[in-house]
Protein backbone atom coordinates (compact mmCIF):
# COMPACT_ATOMS: atom_id res chain seq x y z
CA UNK A 1 0.00 0.00 0.00
CA UNK A 2 1.47 3.30 -0.99
CA UNK A 3 -0.50 5.91 0.77
CA UNK A 4 -0.40 9.52 -0.38
CA UNK A 5 1.77 11.43 2.05
CA UNK A 6 0.24 14.55 3.57
CA UNK A 7 1.11 17.78 1.85
CA UNK A 8 3.93 19.78 3.39
CA UNK A 9 3.87 23.55 3.61
CA UNK A 10 6.86 24.92 1.56
CA UNK A 11 7.85 27.27 4.36
CA UNK A 12 7.83 24.40 6.82
CA UNK A 13 9.70 22.25 4.35
CA UNK A 14 12.48 24.83 4.17
CA UNK A 15 12.64 24.95 7.95
CA UNK A 16 12.79 21.17 8.21
CA UNK A 17 15.56 21.10 5.65
CA UNK A 18 17.71 23.21 7.98
CA UNK A 19 16.67 21.14 10.98
CA UNK A 20 17.93 17.89 9.43
CA UNK A 21 21.48 18.78 10.33
CA UNK A 22 22.83 16.65 13.20
CA UNK A 23 25.35 18.77 15.14
CA UNK A 24 28.30 16.99 16.75
CA UNK A 25 28.35 16.81 20.52
CA UNK A 26 31.28 18.49 22.31
CA UNK A 27 34.33 16.28 22.59
CA UNK A 28 34.27 16.21 26.39
CA UNK A 29 30.67 15.02 26.38
CA UNK A 30 31.54 12.36 23.83
CA UNK A 31 34.45 11.12 25.94
CA UNK A 32 32.32 11.11 29.08
CA UNK A 33 29.47 9.27 27.40
CA UNK A 34 31.76 6.64 25.95
CA UNK A 35 33.56 6.08 29.22
CA UNK A 36 30.21 5.61 30.94
CA UNK A 37 29.18 3.17 28.22
CA UNK A 38 32.42 1.23 28.68
CA UNK A 39 31.88 1.14 32.43
CA UNK A 40 28.41 -0.24 31.83
CA UNK A 41 29.81 -2.93 29.55
CA UNK A 42 32.37 -3.85 32.19
CA UNK A 43 29.72 -3.89 34.90
CA UNK A 44 27.40 -6.07 32.90
CA UNK A 45 30.20 -8.48 32.13
CA UNK A 46 30.84 -8.89 35.85
CA UNK A 47 27.24 -9.29 36.84
CA UNK A 48 25.29 -12.40 35.88
CA UNK A 49 22.85 -11.82 33.04
CA UNK A 50 20.04 -13.48 34.98
CA UNK A 51 19.56 -13.27 38.72
CA UNK A 52 20.63 -16.43 40.49
CA UNK A 53 17.63 -18.38 41.72
CA UNK A 54 17.13 -18.89 45.44
CA UNK A 55 17.80 -22.61 45.17
CA UNK A 56 21.01 -22.01 43.30
CA UNK A 57 22.00 -19.26 45.72
CA UNK A 58 21.49 -21.59 48.67
CA UNK A 59 23.29 -24.42 46.92
CA UNK A 60 26.27 -22.30 45.96
CA UNK A 61 28.02 -22.17 49.37
CA UNK A 62 27.44 -25.90 49.81
CA UNK A 63 28.97 -26.65 46.44
CA UNK A 64 31.85 -24.32 47.19
CA UNK A 65 32.48 -25.95 50.57
CA UNK A 66 32.32 -29.43 49.05
CA UNK A 67 34.79 -28.57 46.30
CA UNK A 68 37.10 -26.94 48.86
CA UNK A 69 36.97 -30.03 51.08
CA UNK A 70 37.68 -32.28 48.09
CA UNK A 71 40.59 -30.16 47.00
CA UNK A 72 42.00 -30.07 50.54
CA UNK A 73 41.62 -33.84 50.86
CA UNK A 74 43.41 -34.34 47.58
CA UNK A 75 46.23 -32.04 48.66
CA UNK A 76 46.63 -33.91 51.99
CA UNK A 77 46.60 -37.28 50.26
CA UNK A 78 49.19 -36.17 47.71
CA UNK A 79 51.38 -34.80 50.46
CA UNK A 80 51.10 -38.07 52.42
CA UNK A 81 52.09 -40.02 49.33
CA UNK A 82 55.08 -37.77 48.73
CA UNK A 83 56.01 -37.93 52.39
CA UNK A 84 55.78 -34.22 53.19
CA UNK A 85 53.21 -31.96 54.67
CA UNK A 86 51.43 -29.48 52.46
CA UNK A 87 52.85 -26.04 52.96
CA UNK A 88 51.35 -22.68 52.41
CA UNK A 89 54.27 -21.89 50.16
CA UNK A 90 52.78 -23.88 47.30
CA UNK A 91 52.98 -21.71 44.21
CA UNK A 92 49.60 -20.61 43.05
CA UNK A 93 48.50 -21.82 39.65
CA UNK A 94 48.73 -19.20 36.95
CA UNK A 95 45.86 -16.78 36.94
CA UNK A 96 43.18 -17.97 34.57
CA UNK A 97 42.01 -15.45 32.05
CA UNK A 98 38.29 -15.15 32.36
CA UNK A 99 36.69 -16.41 29.15
CA UNK A 100 34.13 -13.63 29.06
CA UNK A 101 36.57 -10.86 29.80
CA UNK A 102 35.30 -7.70 28.11
CA UNK A 103 37.31 -6.10 25.40
CA UNK A 104 38.30 -2.99 27.28
CA UNK A 105 41.22 -3.89 29.44
CA UNK A 106 41.43 -0.35 30.78
CA UNK A 107 38.18 -0.81 32.64
CA UNK A 108 38.87 -4.31 33.94
CA UNK A 109 42.52 -4.80 34.54
CA UNK A 110 42.19 -7.07 37.50
CA UNK A 111 42.31 -10.76 36.74
CA UNK A 112 39.97 -12.93 38.78
CA UNK A 113 41.49 -14.24 41.98
CA UNK A 114 43.51 -17.38 41.36
CA UNK A 115 41.81 -20.55 42.55
CA UNK A 116 44.38 -21.30 45.23
CA UNK A 117 43.37 -23.75 47.92
CA UNK A 118 44.22 -22.62 51.38
CA UNK A 119 45.72 -25.32 53.57
CA UNK A 120 43.53 -25.94 56.57
CA UNK A 121 44.62 -27.54 59.85
CA UNK A 122 43.28 -31.09 59.70
CA UNK A 123 43.46 -32.44 63.25
CA UNK A 124 42.53 -29.49 65.40
CA UNK A 125 39.25 -29.59 67.25
CA UNK A 126 38.70 -25.85 67.06
CA UNK A 127 40.19 -24.19 64.03
CA UNK A 128 41.77 -20.83 64.63
CA UNK A 129 40.00 -18.22 62.56
CA UNK A 130 42.48 -15.67 61.44
CA UNK A 131 41.35 -12.77 59.29
CA UNK A 132 42.31 -13.49 55.72
CA UNK A 133 44.60 -10.78 54.43
CA UNK A 134 43.08 -9.02 51.45
CA UNK A 135 45.47 -8.35 48.64
CA UNK A 136 45.43 -5.08 46.75
CA UNK A 137 44.07 -6.82 43.68
CA UNK A 138 41.27 -8.46 45.63
CA UNK A 139 40.24 -5.24 47.28
CA UNK A 140 40.29 -3.48 43.92
CA UNK A 141 38.14 -6.21 42.43
CA UNK A 142 35.72 -5.91 45.34
CA UNK A 143 35.61 -2.15 44.89
CA UNK A 144 35.01 -2.50 41.20
CA UNK A 145 32.29 -5.06 41.73
CA UNK A 146 30.43 -2.83 44.18
CA UNK A 147 30.66 0.22 41.97
CA UNK A 148 29.78 -1.75 38.87
CA UNK A 149 26.58 -2.83 40.55
CA UNK A 150 25.90 0.72 41.64
CA UNK A 151 26.51 1.90 38.09
CA UNK A 152 24.06 -0.64 36.68
CA UNK A 153 21.50 0.32 39.32
CA UNK A 154 21.96 3.96 38.38
CA UNK A 155 21.63 3.22 34.67
CA UNK A 156 18.44 1.27 35.41
CA UNK A 157 17.17 4.27 37.36
CA UNK A 158 17.12 2.33 40.64
CA UNK A 159 18.70 5.23 42.44
CA UNK A 160 17.96 4.10 45.97
CA UNK A 161 19.72 0.78 45.29
CA UNK A 162 22.60 2.67 43.78
CA UNK A 163 22.84 4.85 46.88
CA UNK A 164 22.88 1.79 49.13
CA UNK A 165 25.75 0.31 47.13
CA UNK A 166 27.60 3.62 47.09
CA UNK A 167 27.22 3.86 50.87
CA UNK A 168 28.50 0.31 51.24
CA UNK A 169 31.52 1.18 49.13
CA UNK A 170 32.09 4.26 51.25
CA UNK A 171 31.97 2.17 54.42
CA UNK A 172 34.28 -0.56 53.16
CA UNK A 173 36.70 1.56 51.16
CA UNK A 174 36.54 5.11 52.52
CA UNK A 175 39.68 6.09 50.61
CA UNK A 176 39.67 3.37 48.02
CA UNK A 177 41.09 3.67 44.55
CA UNK A 178 37.66 4.25 43.08
CA UNK A 179 36.60 6.90 45.59
CA UNK A 180 36.35 9.51 42.84
CA UNK A 181 34.01 7.35 40.77
CA UNK A 182 32.01 6.56 43.90
CA UNK A 183 31.49 10.19 44.77
CA UNK A 184 30.52 11.03 41.19
CA UNK A 185 28.05 8.18 41.24
CA UNK A 186 26.65 9.40 44.56
CA UNK A 187 25.92 12.82 43.06
CA UNK A 188 24.25 11.25 40.05
CA UNK A 189 22.17 8.89 42.18
CA UNK A 190 21.08 11.68 44.53
CA UNK A 191 20.20 13.81 41.53
CA UNK A 192 18.25 10.98 39.97
CA UNK A 193 16.42 10.26 43.20
CA UNK A 194 15.24 13.85 43.27
CA UNK A 195 17.25 14.74 46.37
CA UNK A 196 18.42 17.94 44.76
CA UNK A 197 19.74 19.70 47.83
CA UNK A 198 21.83 16.72 48.92
CA UNK A 199 23.02 16.29 45.34
CA UNK A 200 24.13 19.90 45.26
CA UNK A 201 26.03 19.50 48.52
CA UNK A 202 27.61 16.26 47.32
CA UNK A 203 28.57 17.96 44.05
CA UNK A 204 30.22 20.82 45.92
CA UNK A 205 32.17 18.44 48.11
CA UNK A 206 33.12 16.43 45.00
CA UNK A 207 34.42 19.53 43.26
CA UNK A 208 36.52 20.50 46.25
CA UNK A 209 37.87 17.00 46.75
CA UNK A 210 38.57 16.25 43.08
CA UNK A 211 39.01 19.65 41.45
CA UNK A 212 40.77 18.22 38.39
CA UNK A 213 38.26 15.46 37.77
CA UNK A 214 36.80 15.11 34.30
CA UNK A 215 33.44 14.66 35.98
CA UNK A 216 33.46 18.03 37.73
CA UNK A 217 31.56 20.09 35.13
CA UNK A 218 28.89 17.45 34.95
CA UNK A 219 28.37 17.39 38.69
CA UNK A 220 27.94 21.11 38.68
CA UNK A 221 25.02 20.72 36.31
CA UNK A 222 26.95 22.69 33.77
CA UNK A 223 26.67 22.56 30.03
CA UNK A 224 27.45 19.34 28.34
Amino acid at each position, binding site marked *: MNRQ*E*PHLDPELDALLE*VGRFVPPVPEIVRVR*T*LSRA*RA*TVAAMAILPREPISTVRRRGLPLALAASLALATGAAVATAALLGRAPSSGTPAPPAIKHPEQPMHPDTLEVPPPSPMVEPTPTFTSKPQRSPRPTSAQESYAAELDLLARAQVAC*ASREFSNALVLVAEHGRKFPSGRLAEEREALRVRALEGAGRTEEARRAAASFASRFPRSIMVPRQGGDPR
Partner: protein
Amino acid sequence: MGYLRLAHSAPPAPTPEGACLAAFEGEIDYVFTTLKRLGAAPHEIEDLVQEIFVVLYRHWRTLDTDRPIRPYLFGVAYRILYAHHRRHAKEVLYADIDREDGAVSPEGSLQGKQSIALLMAALKHLPMSRRAVVVMHDLDEVPIADIARNLSITRFGAYARLRKGRRELAAAVRRLSRGEARA
Protein backbone atom coordinates in the same frame (compact mmCIF):
# COMPACT_ATOMS: atom_id res chain seq x y z
CA MET B 1 62.88 -7.18 -9.95
CA GLY B 2 61.25 -8.22 -6.79
CA TYR B 3 59.70 -5.76 -4.44
CA LEU B 4 58.44 -5.82 -0.95
CA ARG B 5 54.80 -5.45 -0.28
CA LEU B 6 53.40 -4.53 3.08
CA ALA B 7 51.57 -7.48 4.52
CA HIS B 8 48.93 -6.45 6.99
CA SER B 9 48.09 -8.84 9.74
CA ALA B 10 44.46 -9.83 9.89
CA PRO B 11 42.45 -7.44 12.06
CA PRO B 12 41.26 -8.94 15.32
CA ALA B 13 37.78 -10.38 15.15
CA PRO B 14 35.36 -7.82 16.60
CA THR B 15 33.58 -8.90 19.74
CA PRO B 16 29.85 -8.24 20.06
CA GLU B 17 30.58 -5.77 22.86
CA GLY B 18 33.12 -3.97 20.69
CA ALA B 19 30.73 -3.85 17.76
CA CYS B 20 27.98 -2.50 20.00
CA LEU B 21 30.23 0.19 21.42
CA ALA B 22 31.47 1.11 17.96
CA ALA B 23 27.92 1.40 16.65
CA PHE B 24 26.95 3.50 19.64
CA GLU B 25 29.97 5.72 19.22
CA GLY B 26 29.07 6.28 15.59
CA GLU B 27 25.58 7.41 16.52
CA ILE B 28 26.26 9.48 19.63
CA ASP B 29 25.57 12.75 17.82
CA TYR B 30 22.34 11.39 16.45
CA VAL B 31 21.17 10.10 19.83
CA PHE B 32 21.86 13.45 21.53
CA THR B 33 20.11 15.35 18.73
CA THR B 34 17.14 13.00 18.78
CA LEU B 35 16.65 13.44 22.50
CA LYS B 36 16.81 17.21 22.08
CA ARG B 37 14.30 17.09 19.26
CA LEU B 38 12.00 14.94 21.35
CA GLY B 39 12.09 17.54 24.09
CA ALA B 40 14.46 16.10 26.69
CA ALA B 41 15.80 18.69 29.09
CA PRO B 42 19.53 19.36 28.56
CA HIS B 43 20.45 18.31 32.09
CA GLU B 44 18.88 14.87 31.68
CA ILE B 45 20.13 14.05 28.20
CA GLU B 46 23.36 12.32 29.23
CA ASP B 47 21.58 9.99 31.63
CA LEU B 48 18.99 9.20 28.99
CA VAL B 49 21.72 8.48 26.45
CA GLN B 50 23.18 6.05 28.94
CA GLU B 51 19.82 4.32 29.31
CA ILE B 52 19.60 4.03 25.56
CA PHE B 53 23.02 2.44 25.49
CA VAL B 54 22.00 -0.10 28.15
CA VAL B 55 19.00 -1.12 26.04
CA LEU B 56 21.13 -1.29 22.88
CA TYR B 57 23.74 -3.38 24.65
CA ARG B 58 21.20 -5.78 26.10
CA HIS B 59 19.57 -6.37 22.72
CA TRP B 60 22.67 -6.21 20.59
CA ARG B 61 22.96 -9.94 20.06
CA THR B 62 19.40 -10.20 18.78
CA LEU B 63 19.50 -7.02 16.74
CA ASP B 64 19.45 -7.20 12.95
CA THR B 65 22.55 -5.16 12.24
CA ASP B 66 21.98 -5.27 8.49
CA ARG B 67 19.20 -2.74 8.91
CA PRO B 68 19.95 0.91 9.61
CA ILE B 69 20.35 1.40 13.33
CA ARG B 70 18.93 4.92 13.55
CA PRO B 71 15.24 4.00 13.44
CA TYR B 72 15.85 1.44 16.17
CA LEU B 73 17.71 3.98 18.31
CA PHE B 74 14.93 6.46 17.75
CA GLY B 75 12.34 3.93 18.93
CA VAL B 76 14.37 3.24 22.06
CA ALA B 77 14.91 6.95 22.71
CA TYR B 78 11.21 7.63 22.29
CA ARG B 79 10.17 4.91 24.72
CA ILE B 80 12.76 5.85 27.31
CA LEU B 81 11.87 9.51 27.17
CA TYR B 82 8.17 8.73 27.28
CA ALA B 83 8.65 6.55 30.36
CA HIS B 84 10.85 9.21 31.89
CA HIS B 85 8.18 11.87 31.43
CA ARG B 86 5.55 9.56 32.83
CA ARG B 87 7.67 8.98 35.93
CA HIS B 88 8.02 12.70 36.38
CA ALA B 89 4.40 13.39 35.53
CA LYS B 90 3.98 15.56 38.60
CA GLU B 91 6.48 17.97 37.20
CA VAL B 92 5.32 20.35 34.52
CA LEU B 93 6.35 18.91 31.21
CA TYR B 94 9.11 20.91 29.50
CA ALA B 95 9.16 23.40 32.35
CA ASP B 96 12.81 22.66 32.89
CA ILE B 97 13.94 23.09 29.33
CA ASP B 98 16.68 25.61 29.08
CA ARG B 99 15.52 28.91 27.68
CA GLU B 100 18.61 29.11 25.56
CA ASP B 101 17.80 25.82 23.97
CA GLY B 102 14.21 26.53 23.10
CA ALA B 103 13.82 30.21 22.46
CA VAL B 104 15.12 32.04 19.47
CA SER B 105 18.36 33.58 20.59
CA PRO B 106 18.45 37.34 20.10
CA GLU B 107 22.19 37.14 19.54
CA GLY B 108 21.80 34.44 16.94
CA SER B 109 23.12 36.19 13.90
CA LEU B 110 23.03 33.22 11.63
CA GLN B 111 19.83 32.47 9.84
CA GLY B 112 20.40 28.73 10.22
CA LYS B 113 20.75 28.95 13.97
CA GLN B 114 17.56 30.95 14.23
CA SER B 115 15.73 28.51 12.02
CA ILE B 116 16.83 25.57 14.14
CA ALA B 117 15.87 27.37 17.32
CA LEU B 118 12.48 28.21 15.83
CA LEU B 119 11.96 24.61 14.75
CA MET B 120 12.91 23.25 18.17
CA ALA B 121 10.63 25.72 19.88
CA ALA B 122 7.78 24.81 17.55
CA LEU B 123 8.34 21.08 18.04
CA LYS B 124 7.76 21.56 21.75
CA HIS B 125 4.17 22.46 20.98
CA LEU B 126 3.49 18.99 19.63
CA PRO B 127 2.45 16.13 21.85
CA MET B 128 5.12 13.47 22.20
CA SER B 129 3.40 10.85 20.05
CA ARG B 130 2.98 13.14 17.03
CA ARG B 131 6.30 14.84 17.52
CA ALA B 132 8.07 11.48 17.31
CA VAL B 133 6.50 10.70 13.94
CA VAL B 134 7.17 14.17 12.53
CA VAL B 135 10.81 14.12 13.67
CA MET B 136 11.37 10.62 12.41
CA HIS B 137 9.74 11.22 9.03
CA ASP B 138 10.54 14.82 8.24
CA LEU B 139 13.92 15.22 9.91
CA ASP B 140 15.38 11.71 9.89
CA GLU B 141 13.64 10.85 6.62
CA VAL B 142 12.60 7.41 7.78
CA PRO B 143 9.90 5.73 5.67
CA ILE B 144 6.47 5.39 7.23
CA ALA B 145 6.67 1.59 7.29
CA ASP B 146 9.83 1.72 9.40
CA ILE B 147 8.34 4.36 11.67
CA ALA B 148 5.30 2.19 12.25
CA ARG B 149 7.46 -0.81 13.04
CA ASN B 150 9.83 1.00 15.37
CA LEU B 151 7.12 2.85 17.28
CA SER B 152 4.84 -0.22 17.34
CA ILE B 153 1.94 1.56 15.68
CA THR B 154 -0.02 0.88 12.50
CA ARG B 155 0.85 2.57 9.23
CA PHE B 156 -2.51 4.25 9.29
CA GLY B 157 -1.75 5.56 12.77
CA ALA B 158 1.63 6.79 11.61
CA TYR B 159 0.10 8.67 8.66
CA ALA B 160 -2.57 10.16 10.89
CA ARG B 161 -0.01 11.36 13.40
CA LEU B 162 2.17 12.78 10.66
CA ARG B 163 -0.71 14.68 9.08
CA LYS B 164 -1.91 16.16 12.35
CA GLY B 165 1.61 16.75 13.64
CA ARG B 166 2.58 18.71 10.54
CA ARG B 167 -0.52 20.88 10.86
CA GLU B 168 0.32 21.59 14.48
CA LEU B 169 3.96 22.25 13.67
CA ALA B 170 3.10 24.68 10.88
CA ALA B 171 0.68 26.50 13.19
CA ALA B 172 3.29 26.69 15.93
CA VAL B 173 5.91 28.02 13.53
CA ARG B 174 3.51 30.71 12.31
CA ARG B 175 2.58 31.63 15.86
CA LEU B 176 6.19 31.83 16.99
CA SER B 177 7.25 33.78 13.90
CA ARG B 178 4.47 36.32 14.48
CA GLY B 179 5.49 36.66 18.11
CA GLU B 180 9.09 37.10 17.10
CA ALA B 181 8.19 39.72 14.52
CA ARG B 182 6.10 41.62 17.06
CA ALA B 183 8.87 41.59 19.66
